[in-house]
């Protein structure tokens, strides 16, 4: 399909364009600046007149917004610009999809939310579709997500607002997929879709998740009463508070929870887990593989493996087309030696153990082919008395037999260690 996207170079627009192009759509970017080469460019400025819709355009996705929020007077211009775009779509009988905001409300505290609400009314009247995303995150650090990441990176503290406002996060790629789902379906008219996690989470929790999964640093949570922020806003004045991003934080504080379950269901979109989405890869699968590598290699080498071995394991698995870990058990991650319970033919020859058996072999090969592995596998190259060696052999045999007994007795536990992975996969 031929799609015109305003704001195509923005945080969401960029990911949407890439996904649409990957699915075989023709993307035309309606932006101020020329866009990157694979897409056609249609010069367009929110403050200028609406562009001429190219012939054959089947959908117009309106993402562009005045996020700088420089002046309240810009609101009317933004509404007028949207109306012009609506007319342009109507003339070409193209679908119109407007990306609004969770804050859109007639009586919203922020001008941003009120402007979005006004545009929504025009879109719905013209049988267009409105999408209200929750807290968009993931991918490149841009938009509000970028601001929050930078904040967490710079500050050793994370403000935990009291009382806690809630957000409903959605990964930018999940949002792009949802928008495309609307584009590709014919049975959607004059509807509002609320897109975000079904269960709202505290904003502080969201920030702490950024610290843990994105920035990968420990941050101290500091409670900040909302009243204090209000005081600050009043003292610095509206324009400075907008520049500091305080206004956007205030729009969060007044966020009403939205019902997203029905919308997600209708579009057939399943949101990814926050921890995975925050990971740079966008899915956290590699992280799972790295954790699995650490468990398997630690188990074989009897000490924490070198980092290079861990990442080599992940690359080997990815090379074999296996992107999902099979070890999920927290117990195993903490105590890799417990893998002894699973490393026996009784488990590994069963259908659900074969994958683990293969991965153990891969880890074995990778563990051996390293200086660290050479020490463990070949031993020191010095002569030892036969008696001492015999004692060492006996000890190994005793340990192995002891674990074998434990494995026999602990069969139900072992099954749970493996089954833990089963339930996780379904979740």
């Amino acid at each position, binding site marked *: 399909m031929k799609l015109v996207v305003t704001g195509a170079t923005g945080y969401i627009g960029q990911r949407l364009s890439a996904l649409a192009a990957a699915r075989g759509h023709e993307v035309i970017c309606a932006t101020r600046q020329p866009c990157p080469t694979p897409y056609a460019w249609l010069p367009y400025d929110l403050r200028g007149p609406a562009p001429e819709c190219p012939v054959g355009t089947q959908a117009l996705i309106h993402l562009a917004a005045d996020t700088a929020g420089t002046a309240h007077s810009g609101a009317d211009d933004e509404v007028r610009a949207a109306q012009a775009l609506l007319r342009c779509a109507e003339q070409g009988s193209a679908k119109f999809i407007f990306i609004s905001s969770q804050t859109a409300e007639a009586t919203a505290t922020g001008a941003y939310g009120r402007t979005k609400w006004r545009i929504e009314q025009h879109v719905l009247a013209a049988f267009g579709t409105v999408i209200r995303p929750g807290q968009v995150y993931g991918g490149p650090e841009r938009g509000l997500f970028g601001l929050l990441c930078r904040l967490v990176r710079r500050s050793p503290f994370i403000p935990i607002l009291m009382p806690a406002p809630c957000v409903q996060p959605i990964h930018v790629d999940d949002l792009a997929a949802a928008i495309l789902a609307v584009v590709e379906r014919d049975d959607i008219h004059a509807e509002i879709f609320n897109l975000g996690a079904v269960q709202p989470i505290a904003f502080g929790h969201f920030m702490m998740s950024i610290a843990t999964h994105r920035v990968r640093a420990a941050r101290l949570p500091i409670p900040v009463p909302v009243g204090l922020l209000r005081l600050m806003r009043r003292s610095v004045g509206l324009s400075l508070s907008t520049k500091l991003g305080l206004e956007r934080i205030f729009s969060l504080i007044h966020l009403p929870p939205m019902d997203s379950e029905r919308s997600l269901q209708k579009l057939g979109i399943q949101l990814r887990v926050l921890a995975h989405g925050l990971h740079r890869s966008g899915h956290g699968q590699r992280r799972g593989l790295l954790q699995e590598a650490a468990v398997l290699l630690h188990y074989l080498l009897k000490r924490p493996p070198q980092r290079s071995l861990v990442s080599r394991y992940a690359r080997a698995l990815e090379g074999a087309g296996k992107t999902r870990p099979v070890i999920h058990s927290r117990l195993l991650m903490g105590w890799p030696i417990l*893998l002894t319970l699973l490393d026996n033919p009784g488990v590994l020859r069963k259908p659900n153990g074969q994958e683990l058996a293969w991965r153990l072999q891969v880890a074995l090969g990778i563990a051996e082919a390293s*200086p660290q592995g050479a020490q463990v*596998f070949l*031993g020191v190259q010095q002569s*030892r008395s036969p008696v001492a*060696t015999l004692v060492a052999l006996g000890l190994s045999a005793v340990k*192995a037999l002891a*674990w074998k007994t434990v494995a026999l007795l602990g069969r139900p536990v072992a099954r749970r260690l493996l089954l833990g992975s089963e339930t996780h996969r379904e979740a």
Partner: protein
Amino acid sequence: MPGGCCLEAKLTVKPEFDVIIVGSGPAGTSAAYPLVKAGLKVLMVDAQADTSPSVLPTRPFLSARADDAHQWKWMIGENFHALNQLDAVSPKLKTPTHAHVFEGFSAGNRIETDNFVGIGSLATGGLSNAWGCGVATLGTSDFAGLPIDYAEMQTSYETVARRIGISGRIDDDLSSYFGLDEWSQPPLPLDALHQRLLEQYNRRRPGFPAPGFRLGRSRVAVLSQPLDERKACDLSGNCLWGCHNQALYSASQELRKLKQYPGFRHTQDFLVEDLLEQDGSWAIADHRSALRLRGTRLLLAAGTLASTRLALKRLNHSAPIPLLSSPTAAFLLWLPKMLGTPRASTFGLGQLSFALELTAAATAFGSTFSTTGLPMTEFVSRIPLSKRYSIELLKNLLSACVVGNIFLPGHLSNNTAVLRPDGSLRISGQVHPELPGLMKTAEAKLRRIYWKMGALLMPMSFTVGRPGADIHYAGTLPMHLTPRIGQTDRLGEVAGLPGVHIVDGACLPSLTEKSHTLTLMANADRIARSLATTIGNQTA
């Protein structure tokens, strides 16, 4: 018609080559020498595609293992080659250095197998890039009833042996069994474990209670003294991973020498799919290019499996034919007295060999190897303990162990090869009904004999390989005095295809327990000598 006349003129023009050799392995290169020396125009083709150079260890094995952070590149490969071949029958098949040797053979030559390990090579130098370097001559009695003059064979054995460089010359119990000492270099030094085994054997020999068991140095195509540009083995222990001295013989080393003859041409990346007869000469064709190359005679040396398919396809012969292979097994020997021996750099291929009479009709042959240069992963999975403790156990145990292999004569295999209507070759692996019993006998005898020598054949370690795991294939189109369809004459000329000769393992009429590489090379040399004379007389 002018067009027709030109076409005819083209067809009757003399082919550009006197002989085309398909394959550049041990057989192909051995056949090439007598022909190019006689001044004939010879084209050799193989199907090696462009391959990026692989990483070789640059230092001795143990020192590289100790601190080379990049050792995974030659142990596993940057594309994780070894991890994608976990089920391979031999560690050689997993080594990244050898990846290009085995790659694409079955698909390219359309070999399908059932209960059979079908290995071959498209690479320049063929399987000799990754062989165990075992060599032996066959005795007069092995040629009894065959249309081959043993004196001719003897000359060829000598020529080939001197050319490829063999070490192991020593007066021991296997001297006559190998029959190579006259043309060989001195043996390579033994490691501590093999020294002890040999001492024990020699000490007990006068009253050795096991008749029919002979132990001696392995004779291997590995240099103990420099030869041409190749250097002698320096005991780096990298035999499996890639020898930087080129001490191990590979037919690929011959190409540079062959190219010095003006009549010799070598073409790579040419996968022969069809043999076409044109006006009394033969052309080979590769489906991927329009190129056709024409020669008066065609020598098939593509490896037993590939040569067999090409000949059967041209003959359109779809009846099942026998395929010989040597039933094989592997085992682990423990020398308890040697516990605590430090790991030391040593030669990685056969150090001691044995011949063991099983019955009046069947002798077994085998060799023992150091465990040092092998990946330990191979052993870990065979121990019935969890891997963590298998590693711990083997770390202390393996430096006092040697691994052994054993081969039985080809008549104990019962494989068949069939050309299928779609042009593929289907190989079904079977063994002779007597084989399981003989393997049991061999295991019991070896256990008893080695025990006398102070070594314990580890329980459960004696593992019989699947049919074909030996990669000693032969006898599909055997030489015969009066060949029928599906056989070849004494010069390997295929009955029904005049001018097409088979010069690799496929034409060997029998397969003994001994390594057959040297025999098939000598046979190729013998056939080519004869052809050089014939063609020379014809042109004169």
